[in-house]
């Protein structure tokens, strides 16, 4: 087991290096620091001194890969690649354009993101799985037909409409919850209710359909027929046999996204003005703060790779048939 783990972790390293190189090429080679400076200082009538000063303040005035002016190891370390990209591996994100420490911002902002994303995931799973089970229970009836039709219709609505509609209905017309905002501690609950409800409802269409196909695949299998032949009731078959076996793909699907919960959702957070990482990224995009976007790209990828790792591990834990080799 330990050996297997170590091997999986070593598989992740080249992936991280690949992501790092992609972000580096995107942000420094395709688009040179001069361009960044010009975008920030205004396109026209920018003096070269202003650009040089802007670059120097942010440490972008070094050569990309190889610094001829330095000696020994400094030849490698005194470069943009080392200073800006290698540090990402150690989660040293550097400073944003306004001078704030990105790492500190991230560690502070990931908790509100988690506070939204985690309940949304859990409630969503419960609701979607029980609805899907219900459709499977009533299969070959009108209820199933209309349930599936409804979920296709729900799937065809843009998530923007769910958010806008929910804010309008619950927040403005019924005045049940605040339309947007965030607070610390227990006060956060009333702000969290609306985004969680909306994200669960917005996911019903695709979620129910997906889980239904998983369950239907299991229902066809031999062990289910055997269970029925033994005389077990449909409820027992469905809840103890089918649900348990379908949990394997469900669980592994969930494990992948677990680390990404910290990143939060761009849309939800900016609509509900929640000070999480999603809205942080959106602000950075609109301010054209390349340093933050770069940090978030790397962080997101690293967390996804972590999710893949966890998935592999959870497979072996949940399904004894999977061998470690």
């Amino acid at each position, binding site marked *: 087991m330990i050996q297997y783990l170590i091997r999986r972790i070593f598989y992740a390293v080249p992936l991280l290096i690949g992501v790092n190189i992609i972000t580096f090429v995107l942000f420094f080679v395709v688009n040179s620091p001069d361009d960044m400076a010009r975008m920030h200082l205004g396109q026209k009538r920018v003096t070269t001194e202003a650009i040089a000063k802007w670059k120097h303040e942010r440490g972008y005035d070094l050569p990309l890969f190889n610094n001829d002016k330095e000696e020994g190891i400094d030849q490698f370390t005194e470069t943009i690649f080392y200073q800006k990209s290698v540090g990402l591996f150690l989660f040293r994100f550097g400073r944003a354009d306004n001078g704030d420490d990105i790492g500190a911002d991230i560690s502070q902002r990931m908790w509100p993101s988690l506070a939204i994303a985690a309940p949304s995931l859990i409630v969503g799973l419960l609701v979607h799985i029980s609805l899907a089970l219900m459709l499977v229970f009533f299969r070959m009836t009108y209820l199933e037909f209309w349930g599936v039709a409804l979920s296709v219709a729900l799937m065809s609505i843009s998530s923007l409409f769910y958010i806008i509609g929910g804010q309008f209905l619950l927040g403005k017309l019924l005045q049940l919850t605040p339309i947007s905002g965030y607070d610390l501690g227990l006060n956060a609950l009333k702000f969290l209710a609306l985004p969680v409800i909306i994200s669960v409802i917005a996911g019903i269409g695709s979620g129910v359909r997906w889980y239904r196909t998983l369950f239907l695949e299991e229902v066809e299998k031999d062990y289910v027929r055997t269970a029925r032949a033994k005389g077990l009731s449909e409820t027992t078959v469905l809840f103890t046999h089918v649900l348990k076996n379908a949990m394997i793909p469900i669980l592994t699907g969930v494990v992948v996204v677990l680390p990404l919960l910290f990143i939060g959702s761009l849309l939800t957070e900016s609509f509900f003005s929640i000070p999480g990482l999603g809205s942080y990224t959106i602000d950075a995009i609109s301010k054209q703060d390349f340093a933050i*976007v770069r940090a978030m790209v790397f962080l997101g*990828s690293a967390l996804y790779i972590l999710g893949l790792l966890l998935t592999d591990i959870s497979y072996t834990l949940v399904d004894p048939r999977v061998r470690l080799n």
Partner: protein
Amino acid sequence: MIFFWTDILFFILLLMLAASIVRTRSKEHLRRPWRKVARSKSAMVSLTVLVFYFGFAILDSIHFHPTEAQNGQGKFKTEAISLLDWWASPLRLQVEKTYSAPFATTAFARETIRGADGVPRRAYPRLQYGGKHLADPENEKDSDILQTAGKGIAHGLLAWLVLAGLLNVARSRAARMPYIQCGKEMLQGNTEMPWQAMLLTLLLLLVLGFGLGELSLKYHVFGTDKVGGDVFFQSLKSIRTGLLIGTLTTFITLPLALALGILAGYFRGWVDDVIQYIYTTLNSIPGVLLIAASMLLMQAYMARHEDEFASLALRADFRLLFLCMILGLTSWTGLCRLLRAETLKLREMEYVQAARALGTRQGNILLRHILPNVFHLVLISVALDFSSLVLAEAVLSYVNIGVDPTTESWGNMINSARLEMAREPVVWWSLSAAFVFMFALVLAANLFADAVRDAFDPRRAE
């Protein structure tokens, strides 16, 4: 005539589509799954809707420089307009001052108006164009709307009768049946293809289309937006953007996924390792963030090469194309993985082994034996991706990394309208129009994709 890049690519795509339809018709084994699609009621109804949408997108993709006469008072002389712009010129040029509700004859907000006696008072001013032919809007409006709608509906019915008649003639000629019997069969729904449902959909679309079209000449049927533009016209223009995003991405996804997926599956070994590494790496970067980063870079690029993008339209067009490419770059990995797995399976099949044993060249094996047999996966994935791409456009436009703000798109409509929900009374019409148009398209695409998947997926075959 003037061609934008996206126009050219769109027409190339349509030509390829037409070519593959012609090819499919001549081969029996290719036709069989399509026949299954053609028997499905929901798929054919959706197809009718989709064809309607594509019609608008095609009209909107033929651009030319207008002459003075075509463009009213010589406004926007330098900008190219499309056939749709020209056709709907009244809608395009009848711009009010600001918001107005659907079918309104007066503006949305009160203004100070100087009456005939010179005394200023606060009142809702009459709109410049909406219902300007009415002398006394309060009493005449309802009956005028009914009359105009009736006229439009009558035209729609007439058009439907002509089309249905032509269809009947064509069908009865092909089947060598008397017209009456053939028509009866069609209307009673006794045909193999669900002509009855399709004709009903067509009737609904034509009646709605002609009714709204007739009304929109006199009123703003979906109201006007902040700068007074007609919302109905914007929704129609957005069709092209939505469809392009859903279809042009295939120019990136298909070559990448097909080439890499098949190579990885067929050659295995280090080729497989490298290709797997590439797509896992790309896949591990969250899509939205990669798109955001690329769009930032594109903005920097456009700022650097300002003179190459002389006109606003060129700039918007380039941005749309770039967005399609980036969306393609983030979405080919899933299909690539499927194709790799399928090829791994196919290469062990007897017929491939036989081809190899007979000394067929590898290129030939890939092109003639592997490629045709993985194509159902491509078809299913393209169909399923289409609707999610259309939905993604709206979300990306909201985050400001979507299409250019000057391009008409449902995302931009939602984005500019969402803040107005806080107004009293609520400005709801832009949102509703975008909702209706998007919902119809995405629902039709989803239903059609489901039918395609059911027909082509061998696991679902009876």
